[in-house]
């Protein structure tokens, strides 16, 4: 057995989004004993933009990863696989091709399971609805009719502005989930994210494995000395659906409703994606709106007269409605897409394959939760760990600590979930259990490349405060530029982090400076085994 001495965790600076390469070393050899890659995504960027980073990563891994983990299907986790497809799937000038030993994904990606397949088809429809809603809103807002409804109002420009912001953010959420294509008329909906397809179909690999919570993987490849505990995605629908806990559970609590199927149906109908007006779309029987049709069938003069009167009254209502632009409500309903988008976002985040990597000898743990939100975090604490032998440190008659809690207690490296957002890290069931004095954290946040709507939730101030306290400044953010510690944007994040680092002892400080490398392509931190 190779004794692992340390691991190098490298975070590539592609922009807000995850792309990690991790090399494990033993004392005996200079070469790494095994290599792990997690995700390759970012919020935006072309192939040319990302090429230097991916080339660097390939060189660092020497074109081979024993394991590639793809946490979940969001653009900020798979985008580079799409735009840098050739780099991942074709031979380079030296004839070398990128290859992985095993591809690991959550059980929710295993399309061979009937339950997964059905759910994914339904979910795919919803994603499509989200994409179409975003497109529709964008087109609508560009139309003169849309602007007309605010004309003459006090603060018309601000009202319009608020909606434009909304449209931009919605587009961001749509981009995160589905792909669009340029067309003569603008953008059109294309389908799922291509990056995920590249991973599943095109990258050269020996084996694909799907994991569920409670799985314990002994070692990577033939290297023992490390053990991987699978925490998420949860197996219950309810847990996937829960993105935020109550007060004290996540750094902010909120309730977002389940997406309404009625909304999705109307949106899909709008885009001509179903066969005419079926009963599923309309809330009422057709006799209440298609009055004219009935004229054909009714022969009695009284009946005809009554119907003509009805037609007349409908015309009157129509005139009232169309008379005043400022009271029209043609587009208000499209803004329900906001709740819809948030829900989809939270759901997908909770599908993240979340893993805890344990150095067996020392018990030190590295936590890579993907973008798991509260529902996933909470479910980790109810996992039935069959191999519960690592948590028996305190069996003197007391109730044994749950292995998950124990793993969190022993965490020395935490990849901050969901880019420092308010609900990406559980409070009581997460960060507050990370008590190790060596705790360090890396966060994949970069204000230069980020979705418009995200800047208001990332970073979450309370979370930053807690992280700085617990890591004593060993918080490494992809790009500190443009980030502030306070609401009024007066204390730059950089200064505050520097401040927090002063609380380390000289020895710790020196060690940290030695372990931490930062350059324009990546940040790297060495985790002692």
């Amino acid at each position, binding site marked *: 057995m190779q004794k692992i001495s340390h691991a190098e965790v490298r975070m590539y600076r592609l922009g807000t989004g995850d792309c990690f390469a991790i090399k494990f070393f033993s004392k005996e050899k200079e070469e790494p004993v095994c290599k792990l890659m997690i995700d390759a995504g970012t919020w935006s960027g072309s192939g040319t933009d990302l090429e230097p980073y991916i080339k660097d990563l390939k060189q660092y891994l020497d074109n081979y990863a024993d394991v590639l983990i793809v946490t979940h299907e969001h653009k900020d986790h798979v985008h580079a696989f799409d735009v840098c497809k050739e780099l991942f799937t074709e031979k380079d000038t030296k004839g070398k091709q990128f290859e992985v030993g095993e591809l690991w994904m959550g059980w929710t990606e295993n399309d061979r399971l009937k339950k997964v397949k059905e759910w994914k088809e339904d979910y795919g429809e919803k994603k499509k609805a989200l994409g179409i809603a975003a497109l529709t809103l964008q087109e609508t807002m560009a139309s003169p009719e849309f602007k007309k409804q*605010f004309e003459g109002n006090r603060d018309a420009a601000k009202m319009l502005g608020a909606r434009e912001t909304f449209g931009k953010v919605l587009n961001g959420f749509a981009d995160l989930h589905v792909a669009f294509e340029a067309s003569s008329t603008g953008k059109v909906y294309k389908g799922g994210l291509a990056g995920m397809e590249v991973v599943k179909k095109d990258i050269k690999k020996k084996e694909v494995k799907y994991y569920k919570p409670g799985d314990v993987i002994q070692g990577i490849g033939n290297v023992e000395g490390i053990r991987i505990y699978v925490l998420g995605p949860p197996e219950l629908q309810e847990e996937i659906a829960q993105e935020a806990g109550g007060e004290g559970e996540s750094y902010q609590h909120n309730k977002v409703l*389940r997406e309404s199927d*009625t909304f999705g149906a109307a949106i899909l109908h709008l885009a001509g994606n179903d066969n005419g007006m079926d009963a599923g779309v309309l809330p009422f029987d057709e006799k209440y709106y298609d009055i004219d049709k009935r004229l054909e069938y009714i022969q009695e003069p009284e009946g005809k007269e009554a119907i003509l009167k009805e037609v007349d009254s*409908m015309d009157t*209502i129509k005139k*009232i409605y169309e008379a005043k632009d*400022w009271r029209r409500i043609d587009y208000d*309903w499209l803004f329900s897409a906001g*709740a819809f988008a948030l829900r989809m976002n939270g759901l997908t985040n909770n599908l993240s394959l979340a893993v805890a990597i344990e150095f067996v000898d020392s018990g030190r743990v590295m936590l890579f939760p993907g973008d798991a939100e509260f529902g996933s975090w909470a479910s980790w604490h109810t996992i039935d760990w069959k191999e519960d032998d690592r948590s028996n440190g305190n069996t003197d008659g007391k109730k044994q600590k749950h292995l998950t809690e124990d793993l969190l207690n022993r965490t020395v490296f935490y990849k901050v979930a969901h880019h420092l957002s308010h609900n990406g890290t559980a409070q009581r069931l997460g960060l507050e259990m990370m008590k190790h004095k060596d705790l360090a954290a890396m966060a994949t946040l970069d204000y230069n490349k980020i979705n418009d709507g995200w800047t208001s939730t990332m970073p979450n101030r*309370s979370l930053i405060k807690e992280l700085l306290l617990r890591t004593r400044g060993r918080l490494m953010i992809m790009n500190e530029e443009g980030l502030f510690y306070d609401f009024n944007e007066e204390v730059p994040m950089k200064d505050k982090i520097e401040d927090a680092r002063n609380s380390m002892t000289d020895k710790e400080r020196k060690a940290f400076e030695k372990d931490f490398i930062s350059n324009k392509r990546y940040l790297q931190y060495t985790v002692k085994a």
Partner: protein
Amino acid sequence: MNAIQPNTVKKPAFRSLKAYAFDPSLSLKIDTAGINQLVYKVPWEDLDTGPSGEYIEVVDYDPTVKKYFKPVDLNHPYLLAQNGLDPSESNPQFHQQMVYAVAMTTIMNFEKALGRKILWAPRLLEDRAKFEEYVQKLRIYPHALREANAYYSPVKKSLLFGYFSSFPANNVIHMPDALVFTCLSHDIIAHETTHAILDGMQYHYNEPSNPDVLAFHEAFADIVALFQHFTFPSVLQHQIAQTRGDLGSQNLLGKLAQEFGAAIGNYGSLRDAIGEIDEKTKEWKPREPNPNDYKREMEPHARGSILVAAVFEAFITIYKSRVADLLRIATNGTGILPQGDLHPDLVNRLSGEASAAASHVLSMCIRALDYCPPVDITFGEYLRAIITADADLVNNDSRNYRLAFIDAFRRRGIYPEGIKTLSEESLRYAQEPFLGQQQQDFFGVLLKFLKEFRDATIYTKDRAEIYRLSKSHISGSTTSEGLNKKIVFSMEDPGEFEKLTGLVFLTQNWEQYGVRTSPKYKGPSFRIENLRLVSRVGPDGDQLNYIIFSLTQRAGVIVNEDGTISTYVPDDAQEPPKRGFECWGGCTMIFDMANPSLRYAITKPLLDPDKLRQGIRQLNEKRILKQFRYQTEEAILHLSEQSLYFGAGINNNFNEPFAFLHNH
């Protein structure tokens, strides 16, 4: 008056319309099916199809499918003969009938308590010279959204109701994927209508300058919806019988939006004024007041529910004291009711008391609106308004109503600022503030003018005319100069008027205090809003004849990094400077016309009142810092997920602020 028309049938007083007492879900349960269908009695008015009348117009256009639904003609002889259409979820015409019936009932309850006609908030125009435009009818769109939500849009002066497919917590509570229409819920209609009415009365209450403002809007809307349950005798009797007279136990009357709550995955109604379902045991339990909630809870609906609970508790206390004697008689003094059903006579009498108490409590809550400051309301100030308004009308509080309110607020840690004790005397706003000779002369001029206003409007019943008269008396017309100029030009001692109102009325250098120069004259700009006539009769026959208006003024203030405060002059065409925002001051002036005098000046001062007394004119730093802290920190911390991602921040009134369920 109408000319005498012999041999004609008189117009009916009411139009009877069938509708649900709560919502369709209760018609599916054996024990409540019988009481859920009600006949609402709406004051008769000439109606067009829609229905469209004096106050509201229902426009049933569904933008999600681009269809108009056939409008109901409530004048159809068949419908007149059978109290309208039968309740039905699948007939949109019934939906139109129900929103009309419930919205009108809500409006009438307000008018009864207020003693005057209600007006919708005018539409604010881009053209500053015209400023605003009268809105005759509130528009109701029963099928406007596909979402579990409904809202009042202050910009469109419309109620938008949504429908959605349900997703209950389990299939026993509600049928999954069934369509749920928010426009079929009495509570949701009454709630949203109340938002619209309140916006018409207190237009600044949608500006979140402190955590209570939006919460107040929500609470008030819930209070009206809840207490309207008590105006339905059959429902009340049924619930009294079922709870054996104990309205503090679980009952339908204290619950809000039952079907909606179940359909979105709750284990019971959306909100409940007296209790909650325990998440573990799934059993209902009464909720104990917790003063920490008021300190901590910032989300408007949740914070509002603290106020709702306080008012409901006051009601329960009042009800209990009113029925104590009945229970003693019924139990021979033991206080222990016999087993089995209550005697129907006792149920009747108890219901009568409950209905009277509820109607009093609701009236107290509504009347208090006239005694609130025009801006930046807090729950504590609302308590003071309730006490003052009630004491004004009802001299002899023989049943301790006011004490019940004070106690219920105290138990929730809601205390007004700036009073020394929590007694009725301290809570009541100071009557007839002391005025020097010059001030008396000044108010003499104002009172004379207000009398003219009263004479012009007192018998006016037409709402458009009331609006026109009040507007012309404020800003003047070709023939008279209007209240605004009266105040500016008759004021002899601005300093004294500043002490009274807390607003800036200096004759020079007002811009130093961040106050704009009036476009009409050389002086500090201020606005007069909501000039109105109030006439009420108390239970002892005491008559009240008041004229009320509000003065408002805004100042541009900057909170500097070192905590000091400086000012800027607001300009609507420009963004405020960094760390700058607008702080509103206001004063509600209440004049007694029977005994011509200024009765109350209820103020939310821009200037520091303590400093003013010492002769120092200085902006009210405490208020400014409080607003700054709230808007830059506290509120942001508690923004909903949706506002966080999609909104432009806390001060963004340009989206829709009055959703039934908070995710905007």
